[in-house]
Protein backbone atom coordinates (compact mmCIF):
# COMPACT_ATOMS: atom_id res chain seq x y z
CA UNK A 1 0.00 0.00 0.00
CA UNK A 2 3.02 2.14 -0.48
CA UNK A 3 3.20 4.49 -3.35
CA UNK A 4 5.93 5.23 -5.83
CA UNK A 5 6.68 8.69 -4.58
CA UNK A 6 10.07 10.28 -4.72
CA UNK A 7 11.56 13.28 -3.02
CA UNK A 8 12.36 16.39 -5.06
CA UNK A 9 16.06 15.59 -4.78
CA UNK A 10 15.53 12.19 -6.36
CA UNK A 11 13.45 13.82 -9.00
CA UNK A 12 16.25 16.24 -9.81
CA UNK A 13 19.14 13.76 -9.81
CA UNK A 14 17.20 11.06 -11.64
CA UNK A 15 15.71 13.48 -14.12
CA UNK A 16 18.77 15.57 -14.83
CA UNK A 17 21.88 13.71 -13.81
CA UNK A 18 25.10 15.39 -14.74
CA UNK A 19 28.43 13.54 -14.87
CA UNK A 20 26.96 10.62 -16.77
CA UNK A 21 28.63 7.97 -18.82
CA UNK A 22 32.16 6.76 -19.48
CA UNK A 23 34.98 9.19 -19.91
CA UNK A 24 36.18 9.48 -23.46
CA UNK A 25 39.12 7.15 -24.12
CA UNK A 26 41.51 10.11 -24.37
CA UNK A 27 40.55 11.61 -21.03
CA UNK A 28 43.53 10.28 -19.17
CA UNK A 29 43.96 7.63 -16.52
CA UNK A 30 40.54 6.50 -15.28
CA UNK A 31 39.83 4.47 -12.18
CA UNK A 32 36.79 2.30 -12.69
CA UNK A 33 34.70 0.65 -10.00
CA UNK A 34 31.82 -1.73 -10.68
CA UNK A 35 29.32 -3.40 -8.40
CA UNK A 36 26.00 -5.23 -8.57
CA UNK A 37 24.23 -7.39 -11.12
CA UNK A 38 21.50 -6.53 -13.58
CA UNK A 39 19.60 -9.70 -12.85
CA UNK A 40 19.44 -8.64 -9.21
CA UNK A 41 18.15 -5.24 -10.24
CA UNK A 42 21.08 -2.94 -9.50
CA UNK A 43 24.40 -2.36 -11.21
CA UNK A 44 26.58 0.75 -10.76
CA UNK A 45 29.86 1.95 -12.18
CA UNK A 46 31.97 4.93 -11.17
CA UNK A 47 34.86 6.30 -13.20
CA UNK A 48 37.18 8.61 -11.32
CA UNK A 49 39.99 10.92 -12.30
CA UNK A 50 42.28 11.98 -9.53
CA UNK A 51 45.39 14.01 -9.07
CA UNK A 52 47.62 13.85 -6.01
CA UNK A 53 45.02 11.92 -4.02
CA UNK A 54 42.23 14.38 -4.82
CA UNK A 55 39.28 13.53 -7.07
CA UNK A 56 39.35 15.80 -10.10
CA UNK A 57 36.50 14.29 -12.04
CA UNK A 58 33.81 11.67 -11.49
CA UNK A 59 31.28 10.02 -13.73
CA UNK A 60 28.74 7.31 -13.11
CA UNK A 61 26.55 4.82 -14.91
CA UNK A 62 23.74 2.94 -13.31
CA UNK A 63 21.13 0.33 -13.96
CA UNK A 64 18.66 0.44 -11.13
CA UNK A 65 15.73 2.09 -9.49
CA UNK A 66 15.36 5.87 -9.34
CA UNK A 67 16.87 6.02 -5.87
CA UNK A 68 19.94 4.12 -7.03
CA UNK A 69 20.41 6.34 -10.04
CA UNK A 70 19.88 9.50 -8.01
CA UNK A 71 22.35 8.39 -5.32
CA UNK A 72 25.01 7.56 -7.88
CA UNK A 73 24.39 10.84 -9.70
CA UNK A 74 24.56 12.81 -6.46
CA UNK A 75 27.86 11.20 -5.55
CA UNK A 76 29.41 11.73 -8.97
CA UNK A 77 28.51 15.39 -8.70
CA UNK A 78 29.84 15.79 -5.18
CA UNK A 79 33.07 13.79 -5.40
CA UNK A 80 35.32 16.25 -7.25
CA UNK A 81 37.49 18.24 -4.84
CA UNK A 82 37.49 15.57 -2.15
CA UNK A 83 40.51 13.53 -1.21
CA UNK A 84 40.21 9.86 -2.09
CA UNK A 85 40.21 9.20 1.63
CA UNK A 86 37.30 11.46 2.41
CA UNK A 87 35.49 10.18 -0.68
CA UNK A 88 35.93 6.70 0.66
CA UNK A 89 34.16 7.55 3.86
CA UNK A 90 31.23 9.46 2.47
CA UNK A 91 28.31 8.41 4.67
CA UNK A 92 26.07 6.53 2.27
CA UNK A 93 23.26 6.01 4.76
CA UNK A 94 23.04 9.72 5.36
CA UNK A 95 22.80 10.23 1.64
CA UNK A 96 19.99 7.71 1.79
CA UNK A 97 18.22 9.86 4.32
CA UNK A 98 18.82 12.98 2.24
CA UNK A 99 17.15 11.28 -0.73
CA UNK A 100 14.34 9.77 1.39
CA UNK A 101 15.27 6.27 0.33
CA UNK A 102 12.83 3.82 1.93
CA UNK A 103 14.40 1.52 4.49
CA UNK A 104 13.75 -1.57 2.42
CA UNK A 105 15.84 -0.10 -0.37
CA UNK A 106 18.89 0.80 1.68
CA UNK A 107 20.56 -2.43 0.52
CA UNK A 108 20.74 -0.97 -2.95
CA UNK A 109 22.73 2.00 -1.68
CA UNK A 110 25.33 -0.45 -0.49
CA UNK A 111 25.79 -1.51 -4.10
CA UNK A 112 26.38 2.15 -4.96
CA UNK A 113 28.89 2.35 -2.13
CA UNK A 114 30.63 -0.83 -3.25
CA UNK A 115 31.10 0.59 -6.74
CA UNK A 116 32.45 3.83 -5.32
CA UNK A 117 34.85 2.02 -3.02
CA UNK A 118 36.08 -0.15 -5.87
CA UNK A 119 36.75 2.93 -8.00
CA UNK A 120 38.58 4.66 -5.16
CA UNK A 121 40.66 1.60 -4.56
CA UNK A 122 41.60 1.54 -8.19
CA UNK A 123 42.39 5.24 -8.10
CA UNK A 124 44.79 4.50 -5.24
CA UNK A 125 46.38 1.73 -7.28
CA UNK A 126 46.75 4.01 -10.28
CA UNK A 127 48.43 6.55 -8.07
CA UNK A 128 50.93 3.94 -6.91
CA UNK A 129 51.45 1.97 -10.10
CA UNK A 130 50.61 4.28 -12.92
CA UNK A 131 47.94 4.18 -15.55
CA UNK A 132 48.65 0.75 -17.04
CA UNK A 133 46.33 -0.86 -14.55
CA UNK A 134 43.66 1.53 -15.47
CA UNK A 135 43.70 0.52 -19.08
CA UNK A 136 42.97 -3.02 -18.04
CA UNK A 137 40.25 -1.95 -15.64
CA UNK A 138 38.61 0.21 -18.21
CA UNK A 139 38.21 -2.80 -20.44
CA UNK A 140 36.17 -4.22 -17.68
CA UNK A 141 38.02 -7.35 -16.72
Amino acid at each position, binding site marked *: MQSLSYSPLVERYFGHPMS*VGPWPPDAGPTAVGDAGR*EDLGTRVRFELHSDGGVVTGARFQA*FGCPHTIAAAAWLAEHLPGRTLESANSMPILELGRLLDVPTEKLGRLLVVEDALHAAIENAGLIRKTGPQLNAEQAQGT
Partner: protein
Amino acid sequence: MTATCIYMDNAATTPVDPRVAAVMVECLTADGCFANPSSTGHAPGNAARARVEKARAQVAALIGTEPAAIVWTSGATESDNLAILGVARAQRERGRHLVTARTEHKAVLDPCKQLEKEGFEVTYLKPGADGIVQPDAVAAALRKDTLLVSLMQANNEIGVIQDVGAVGKICRDRGVLLHVDAAQSTGKVHIDVNEQCIDLMSLTAHKTYGPKGVGALYVRRHPRPLMQPLIFGGGQEWGLRSGTLPTHQIVGMGMAYEIAGREHASESARLSALRLRLWAGLKQLGDVELNGHPTQRVAGLLNVSFAGVEGESLLYALPQLAVSTGSACTSASHEASYVLRALGRSDQLAQSSLRFSLGRFSTESDVDYAIGAVTEAVRRLRRLAPASVPG
Protein backbone atom coordinates in the same frame (compact mmCIF):
# COMPACT_ATOMS: atom_id res chain seq x y z
CA MET B 1 -4.14 16.27 -11.34
CA THR B 2 -4.50 13.31 -13.63
CA ALA B 3 -5.59 15.28 -16.63
CA THR B 4 -2.23 15.32 -18.34
CA CYS B 5 -1.74 11.60 -17.99
CA ILE B 6 -2.55 9.13 -20.75
CA TYR B 7 -4.27 6.12 -19.28
CA MET B 8 -3.11 2.75 -20.59
CA ASP B 9 -3.81 0.62 -17.55
CA ASN B 10 -7.24 -0.73 -18.41
CA ALA B 11 -6.25 -4.18 -17.17
CA ALA B 12 -5.86 -2.72 -13.68
CA THR B 13 -9.23 -1.05 -13.90
CA THR B 14 -11.32 0.73 -16.50
CA PRO B 15 -13.13 4.00 -16.16
CA VAL B 16 -16.86 3.61 -15.88
CA ASP B 17 -18.62 4.09 -19.21
CA PRO B 18 -20.79 7.24 -19.07
CA ARG B 19 -23.81 5.14 -20.02
CA VAL B 20 -23.12 2.98 -16.99
CA ALA B 21 -22.54 5.94 -14.70
CA ALA B 22 -25.90 7.35 -15.81
CA VAL B 23 -27.87 4.31 -14.63
CA MET B 24 -25.87 4.10 -11.42
CA VAL B 25 -26.68 7.68 -10.55
CA GLU B 26 -30.36 6.86 -10.94
CA CYS B 27 -30.05 4.48 -7.99
CA LEU B 28 -28.45 6.67 -5.35
CA THR B 29 -30.41 9.58 -3.98
CA ALA B 30 -33.84 10.00 -2.45
CA ASP B 31 -35.43 10.80 -5.80
CA GLY B 32 -33.97 7.64 -7.33
CA CYS B 33 -34.20 3.88 -7.05
CA PHE B 34 -32.24 3.72 -3.82
CA ALA B 35 -34.16 1.27 -1.66
CA ASN B 36 -32.96 -2.07 -0.33
CA PRO B 37 -33.77 -4.76 -2.92
CA SER B 38 -34.62 -7.11 -0.08
CA SER B 39 -37.33 -4.75 1.20
CA THR B 40 -39.94 -6.41 -0.91
CA GLY B 41 -42.66 -5.29 1.47
CA HIS B 42 -42.91 -1.89 -0.19
CA ALA B 43 -42.88 -0.31 -3.61
CA PRO B 44 -39.42 1.32 -3.49
CA GLY B 45 -37.92 -2.01 -2.43
CA ASN B 46 -39.71 -3.82 -5.23
CA ALA B 47 -38.51 -1.25 -7.74
CA ALA B 48 -34.92 -1.82 -6.59
CA ARG B 49 -35.43 -5.58 -6.71
CA ALA B 50 -36.70 -5.31 -10.28
CA ARG B 51 -33.58 -3.42 -11.35
CA VAL B 52 -31.34 -5.95 -9.62
CA GLU B 53 -33.10 -8.78 -11.44
CA LYS B 54 -32.82 -7.00 -14.76
CA ALA B 55 -29.09 -6.66 -14.18
CA ARG B 56 -28.87 -10.34 -13.28
CA ALA B 57 -30.39 -11.16 -16.65
CA GLN B 58 -27.96 -8.81 -18.42
CA VAL B 59 -24.96 -10.47 -16.78
CA ALA B 60 -26.34 -13.95 -17.42
CA ALA B 61 -26.87 -13.15 -21.09
CA LEU B 62 -23.22 -12.22 -21.66
CA ILE B 63 -22.05 -15.65 -20.54
CA GLY B 64 -24.91 -17.66 -22.02
CA THR B 65 -26.78 -18.72 -18.93
CA GLU B 66 -29.95 -18.11 -16.96
CA PRO B 67 -30.28 -15.34 -14.35
CA ALA B 68 -30.73 -17.77 -11.46
CA ALA B 69 -27.17 -19.00 -11.96
CA ILE B 70 -25.71 -15.57 -11.10
CA VAL B 71 -24.71 -14.79 -7.50
CA TRP B 72 -23.70 -11.20 -6.76
CA THR B 73 -20.40 -10.62 -4.96
CA SER B 74 -18.07 -7.71 -4.27
CA GLY B 75 -15.78 -8.54 -7.20
CA ALA B 76 -13.70 -11.26 -8.79
CA THR B 77 -11.44 -11.65 -5.76
CA GLU B 78 -14.40 -12.64 -3.67
CA SER B 79 -15.84 -14.76 -6.48
CA ASP B 80 -12.56 -16.65 -6.87
CA ASN B 81 -12.43 -17.26 -3.13
CA LEU B 82 -16.06 -18.29 -2.96
CA ALA B 83 -15.62 -20.74 -5.82
CA ILE B 84 -12.39 -22.32 -4.61
CA LEU B 85 -12.77 -22.22 -0.83
CA GLY B 86 -16.50 -22.77 -1.12
CA VAL B 87 -16.29 -25.97 -3.15
CA ALA B 88 -13.25 -27.37 -1.36
CA ARG B 89 -14.55 -26.80 2.16
CA ALA B 90 -17.99 -28.20 1.36
CA GLN B 91 -16.69 -31.23 -0.52
CA ARG B 92 -13.58 -32.12 1.44
CA GLU B 93 -14.90 -35.58 2.06
CA ARG B 94 -15.12 -36.17 -1.70
CA GLY B 95 -11.52 -35.23 -2.44
CA ARG B 96 -8.61 -33.08 -1.41
CA HIS B 97 -6.91 -32.20 -4.67
CA LEU B 98 -7.12 -29.11 -6.89
CA VAL B 99 -5.40 -28.14 -10.12
CA THR B 100 -4.54 -24.62 -11.19
CA ALA B 101 -1.74 -22.79 -13.03
CA ARG B 102 1.23 -20.76 -11.87
CA THR B 103 0.10 -17.78 -13.90
CA GLU B 104 -3.26 -17.39 -12.17
CA HIS B 105 -4.16 -14.20 -10.32
CA LYS B 106 -3.37 -14.02 -6.60
CA ALA B 107 -7.11 -14.17 -5.97
CA VAL B 108 -6.89 -17.79 -7.14
CA LEU B 109 -3.42 -18.70 -5.90
CA ASP B 110 -3.85 -17.34 -2.38
CA PRO B 111 -7.03 -19.27 -1.56
CA CYS B 112 -5.27 -22.35 -2.98
CA LYS B 113 -2.40 -21.72 -0.56
CA GLN B 114 -4.93 -21.38 2.25
CA LEU B 115 -6.40 -24.73 1.26
CA GLU B 116 -2.97 -26.32 1.48
CA LYS B 117 -2.97 -25.22 5.11
CA GLU B 118 -6.38 -26.85 5.49
CA GLY B 119 -5.15 -30.21 4.28
CA PHE B 120 -5.61 -30.02 0.52
CA GLU B 121 -3.06 -30.66 -2.20
CA VAL B 122 -2.79 -28.30 -5.14
CA THR B 123 -1.05 -28.90 -8.47
CA TYR B 124 0.25 -25.65 -10.00
CA LEU B 125 0.72 -26.22 -13.74
CA LYS B 126 3.56 -24.44 -15.50
CA PRO B 127 2.44 -22.91 -18.79
CA GLY B 128 4.55 -22.95 -21.94
CA ALA B 129 6.89 -20.06 -22.76
CA ASP B 130 3.94 -18.50 -24.58
CA GLY B 131 1.84 -18.52 -21.42
CA ILE B 132 -0.55 -21.20 -22.67
CA VAL B 133 -1.55 -24.10 -20.43
CA GLN B 134 -2.11 -27.10 -22.67
CA PRO B 135 -5.41 -28.90 -22.04
CA ASP B 136 -3.43 -32.16 -22.13
CA ALA B 137 -1.38 -30.94 -19.19
CA VAL B 138 -4.58 -30.39 -17.24
CA ALA B 139 -5.81 -33.86 -18.16
CA ALA B 140 -2.54 -35.36 -17.00
CA ALA B 141 -2.76 -33.58 -13.65
CA LEU B 142 -6.23 -34.88 -12.77
CA ARG B 143 -6.42 -37.49 -10.06
CA LYS B 144 -9.19 -39.61 -8.65
CA ASP B 145 -9.54 -37.20 -5.74
CA THR B 146 -9.42 -33.99 -7.81
CA LEU B 147 -12.35 -31.77 -6.88
CA LEU B 148 -11.78 -28.69 -8.96
CA VAL B 149 -9.68 -27.19 -11.73
CA SER B 150 -9.30 -23.41 -11.68
CA LEU B 151 -8.03 -21.79 -14.86
CA MET B 152 -8.34 -18.19 -15.94
CA GLN B 153 -9.63 -17.37 -19.39
CA ALA B 154 -7.54 -14.24 -20.12
CA ASN B 155 -4.40 -13.50 -18.17
CA ASN B 156 -4.24 -10.11 -16.50
CA GLU B 157 -0.53 -9.50 -17.07
CA ILE B 158 0.13 -10.85 -20.52
CA GLY B 159 -3.34 -11.14 -22.01
CA VAL B 160 -3.05 -14.68 -23.34
CA ILE B 161 -6.27 -16.66 -23.69
CA GLN B 162 -6.56 -20.20 -22.41
CA ASP B 163 -8.69 -22.73 -24.21
CA VAL B 164 -11.11 -23.15 -21.33
CA GLY B 165 -13.60 -24.95 -23.57
CA ALA B 166 -11.15 -27.80 -24.22
CA VAL B 167 -10.32 -27.96 -20.52
CA GLY B 168 -14.03 -27.89 -19.71
CA LYS B 169 -14.71 -30.96 -21.83
CA ILE B 170 -11.88 -32.86 -20.16
CA CYS B 171 -13.11 -31.93 -16.69
CA ARG B 172 -16.74 -32.73 -17.45
CA ASP B 173 -15.72 -36.17 -18.76
CA ARG B 174 -13.75 -36.87 -15.63
CA GLY B 175 -16.40 -35.55 -13.23
CA VAL B 176 -14.21 -32.69 -12.04
CA LEU B 177 -15.58 -29.17 -11.55
CA LEU B 178 -14.10 -26.34 -13.65
CA HIS B 179 -13.82 -22.81 -12.28
CA VAL B 180 -12.85 -20.06 -14.70
CA ASP B 181 -11.66 -16.61 -13.66
CA ALA B 182 -13.12 -14.42 -16.38
CA ALA B 183 -12.27 -11.07 -14.79
CA GLN B 184 -10.20 -10.07 -17.80
CA SER B 185 -12.25 -11.69 -20.52
CA THR B 186 -15.80 -10.38 -20.35
CA GLY B 187 -16.51 -8.32 -23.42
CA LYS B 188 -13.19 -9.43 -24.90
CA VAL B 189 -13.48 -13.17 -25.48
CA HIS B 190 -16.36 -15.42 -26.42
CA ILE B 191 -17.97 -16.96 -23.33
CA ASP B 192 -20.65 -19.62 -23.23
CA VAL B 193 -20.61 -21.51 -19.99
CA ASN B 194 -22.72 -24.36 -21.31
CA GLU B 195 -20.83 -24.92 -24.53
CA GLN B 196 -17.53 -24.55 -22.63
CA CYS B 197 -18.62 -26.91 -19.83
CA ILE B 198 -17.86 -24.40 -17.08
CA ASP B 199 -19.27 -24.99 -13.59
CA LEU B 200 -18.17 -21.79 -11.87
CA MET B 201 -17.08 -18.47 -13.35
CA SER B 202 -15.77 -15.37 -11.58
CA LEU B 203 -16.87 -12.04 -12.98
CA THR B 204 -16.14 -8.45 -12.07
CA ALA B 205 -17.53 -5.19 -13.37
CA HIS B 206 -14.53 -2.89 -13.18
CA LYS B 207 -12.45 -4.37 -15.98
CA THR B 208 -15.38 -3.98 -18.35
CA TYR B 209 -16.31 -0.32 -17.84
CA GLY B 210 -18.49 -1.01 -14.82
CA PRO B 211 -17.94 0.08 -11.22
CA LYS B 212 -15.32 -1.29 -8.85
CA GLY B 213 -16.59 -3.28 -5.88
CA VAL B 214 -19.18 -5.46 -7.55
CA GLY B 215 -18.87 -8.80 -9.27
CA ALA B 216 -20.60 -12.11 -9.59
CA LEU B 217 -20.07 -15.80 -9.45
CA TYR B 218 -21.73 -17.98 -12.02
CA VAL B 219 -22.77 -21.22 -10.35
CA ARG B 220 -24.05 -23.97 -12.61
CA ARG B 221 -27.56 -25.01 -11.64
CA HIS B 222 -28.07 -28.53 -12.97
CA PRO B 223 -26.39 -29.96 -11.00
CA ARG B 224 -25.50 -27.24 -8.55
CA PRO B 225 -22.14 -27.85 -6.89
CA LEU B 226 -22.24 -28.10 -3.12
CA MET B 227 -20.57 -25.01 -1.65
CA GLN B 228 -19.91 -23.40 1.70
CA PRO B 229 -20.47 -19.63 1.84
CA LEU B 230 -17.66 -17.30 2.86
CA ILE B 231 -20.09 -14.81 4.38
CA PHE B 232 -23.12 -15.82 6.40
CA GLY B 233 -26.02 -13.57 7.29
CA GLY B 234 -29.30 -12.35 5.87
CA GLY B 235 -29.46 -15.26 3.45
CA GLN B 236 -29.40 -13.18 0.27
CA GLU B 237 -28.38 -14.87 -2.97
CA TRP B 238 -29.76 -18.28 -2.05
CA GLY B 239 -27.70 -18.22 1.13
CA LEU B 240 -24.46 -18.29 -0.86
CA ARG B 241 -23.71 -14.62 -0.25
CA SER B 242 -25.37 -12.61 2.46
CA GLY B 243 -25.31 -8.84 2.68
CA THR B 244 -27.43 -5.98 1.38
CA LEU B 245 -27.39 -5.94 -2.40
CA PRO B 246 -25.87 -2.68 -3.68
CA THR B 247 -28.48 -1.67 -6.23
CA HIS B 248 -26.47 1.04 -8.01
CA GLN B 249 -23.43 -1.21 -8.30
CA ILE B 250 -25.37 -4.16 -9.62
CA VAL B 251 -27.33 -2.01 -12.06
CA GLY B 252 -24.00 -0.59 -13.26
CA MET B 253 -22.57 -4.04 -13.79
CA GLY B 254 -25.64 -5.13 -15.71
CA MET B 255 -25.46 -2.16 -18.05
CA ALA B 256 -21.69 -2.57 -18.48
CA TYR B 257 -22.14 -6.19 -19.49
CA GLU B 258 -24.98 -5.41 -21.84
CA ILE B 259 -22.80 -2.86 -23.62
CA ALA B 260 -19.89 -5.29 -23.62
CA GLY B 261 -21.99 -7.91 -25.34
CA ARG B 262 -23.21 -5.48 -27.94
CA GLU B 263 -19.90 -3.82 -28.73
CA HIS B 264 -17.51 -6.73 -28.28
CA ALA B 265 -16.80 -7.33 -31.95
CA SER B 266 -16.26 -3.74 -33.05
CA GLU B 267 -14.27 -2.86 -29.96
CA SER B 268 -11.97 -5.83 -30.32
CA ALA B 269 -11.22 -4.97 -33.92
CA ARG B 270 -10.39 -1.39 -33.04
CA LEU B 271 -8.21 -2.34 -30.06
CA SER B 272 -6.35 -5.00 -32.02
CA ALA B 273 -5.36 -2.42 -34.59
CA LEU B 274 -4.19 -0.03 -31.86
CA ARG B 275 -2.19 -2.73 -30.14
CA LEU B 276 -0.47 -3.77 -33.36
CA ARG B 277 0.39 -0.15 -34.04
CA LEU B 278 1.86 0.17 -30.55
CA TRP B 279 3.90 -2.99 -30.90
CA ALA B 280 5.19 -1.98 -34.33
CA GLY B 281 6.35 1.32 -32.87
CA LEU B 282 8.04 -0.16 -29.81
CA LYS B 283 9.80 -2.88 -31.80
CA GLN B 284 11.87 -0.16 -33.47
CA LEU B 285 13.76 0.25 -30.20
CA GLY B 286 15.44 -3.13 -30.59
CA ASP B 287 16.14 -5.53 -27.75
CA VAL B 288 12.47 -5.70 -26.81
CA GLU B 289 10.43 -8.85 -26.44
CA LEU B 290 6.72 -9.51 -26.55
CA ASN B 291 5.49 -11.50 -23.56
CA GLY B 292 2.87 -14.16 -24.17
CA HIS B 293 1.45 -15.88 -27.21
CA PRO B 294 1.48 -13.52 -30.21
CA THR B 295 -2.04 -14.20 -31.42
CA GLN B 296 -4.00 -16.17 -28.79
CA ARG B 297 -4.58 -13.02 -26.76
CA VAL B 298 -7.03 -10.27 -25.90
CA ALA B 299 -7.14 -7.34 -28.26
CA GLY B 300 -5.94 -4.48 -26.10
CA LEU B 301 -3.15 -5.86 -23.95
CA LEU B 302 0.54 -5.71 -24.80
CA ASN B 303 3.29 -6.76 -22.41
CA VAL B 304 6.83 -5.95 -23.49
CA SER B 305 10.21 -6.59 -21.87
CA PHE B 306 12.88 -3.98 -22.44
CA ALA B 307 16.43 -5.31 -22.15
CA GLY B 308 18.88 -3.08 -20.38
CA VAL B 309 16.52 -0.90 -18.34
CA GLU B 310 15.19 -1.28 -14.84
CA GLY B 311 11.44 -1.46 -14.44
CA GLU B 312 10.81 1.05 -11.68
CA SER B 313 13.00 3.65 -13.31
CA LEU B 314 11.31 3.07 -16.63
CA LEU B 315 7.95 3.68 -15.02
CA TYR B 316 9.25 6.75 -13.23
CA ALA B 317 10.63 8.10 -16.48
CA LEU B 318 7.11 7.94 -17.94
CA PRO B 319 5.16 10.23 -15.62
CA GLN B 320 2.61 11.10 -18.29
CA LEU B 321 1.83 7.53 -19.14
CA ALA B 322 -0.25 5.36 -16.82
CA VAL B 323 1.00 1.83 -17.46
CA SER B 324 2.08 -0.87 -15.07
CA THR B 325 5.30 -2.80 -14.67
CA GLY B 326 5.80 -6.50 -14.60
CA SER B 327 7.49 -6.03 -11.29
CA ALA B 328 5.46 -5.80 -8.13
CA CYS B 329 6.14 -2.11 -8.16
CA THR B 330 4.15 -1.31 -5.08
CA SER B 331 6.17 -3.67 -2.99
CA ALA B 332 9.57 -2.80 -1.72
CA SER B 333 11.36 -5.72 -3.23
CA HIS B 334 12.79 -6.09 -6.68
CA GLU B 335 10.64 -9.15 -7.03
CA ALA B 336 9.95 -9.85 -10.66
CA SER B 337 6.46 -10.71 -11.89
CA TYR B 338 5.74 -14.31 -11.02
CA VAL B 339 3.74 -14.59 -14.22
CA LEU B 340 6.65 -13.62 -16.45
CA ARG B 341 8.98 -15.80 -14.40
CA ALA B 342 6.62 -18.73 -14.94
CA LEU B 343 7.04 -18.15 -18.68
CA GLY B 344 10.78 -18.58 -18.27
CA ARG B 345 11.74 -14.92 -18.65
CA SER B 346 14.95 -13.93 -16.87
CA ASP B 347 14.57 -11.90 -13.71
CA GLN B 348 15.91 -8.87 -15.50
CA LEU B 349 13.54 -9.08 -18.45
CA ALA B 350 10.65 -9.93 -16.17
CA GLN B 351 11.47 -6.99 -14.01
CA SER B 352 11.83 -4.47 -16.83
CA SER B 353 8.59 -5.13 -18.61
CA LEU B 354 5.68 -2.80 -19.16
CA ARG B 355 2.05 -3.76 -19.52
CA PHE B 356 0.13 -1.49 -21.88
CA SER B 357 -3.58 -2.12 -21.68
CA LEU B 358 -5.67 -0.19 -24.15
CA GLY B 359 -9.34 0.35 -23.65
CA ARG B 360 -12.57 1.80 -24.92
CA PHE B 361 -11.31 5.35 -24.51
CA SER B 362 -7.83 4.86 -25.97
CA THR B 363 -7.05 6.66 -29.20
CA GLU B 364 -4.48 6.44 -31.95
CA SER B 365 -2.83 9.59 -30.70
CA ASP B 366 -2.53 8.01 -27.23
CA VAL B 367 -0.69 5.14 -28.85
CA ASP B 368 1.60 7.44 -30.78
CA TYR B 369 2.34 9.41 -27.65
CA ALA B 370 3.20 6.20 -25.82
CA ILE B 371 5.55 5.06 -28.56
CA GLY B 372 7.39 8.37 -28.43
CA ALA B 373 7.59 8.59 -24.67
CA VAL B 374 8.69 5.01 -24.14
CA THR B 375 11.28 5.24 -26.92
CA GLU B 376 12.81 8.30 -25.35
CA ALA B 377 12.79 6.88 -21.82
CA VAL B 378 14.27 3.53 -22.80
CA ARG B 379 17.00 5.18 -24.85
CA ARG B 380 17.90 7.51 -22.01
CA LEU B 381 18.00 4.75 -19.39
CA ARG B 382 20.00 2.49 -21.65
CA ARG B 383 22.51 5.28 -22.08
CA LEU B 384 22.68 5.69 -18.30
CA ALA B 385 23.36 2.01 -17.72
CA PRO B 386 26.90 0.67 -17.65
CA ALA B 387 27.85 -1.68 -20.42
CA SER B 388 27.50 -5.24 -19.25
CA VAL B 389 30.47 -6.86 -17.65
CA PRO B 390 30.90 -10.58 -17.65
CA GLY B 391 29.35 -12.16 -14.58
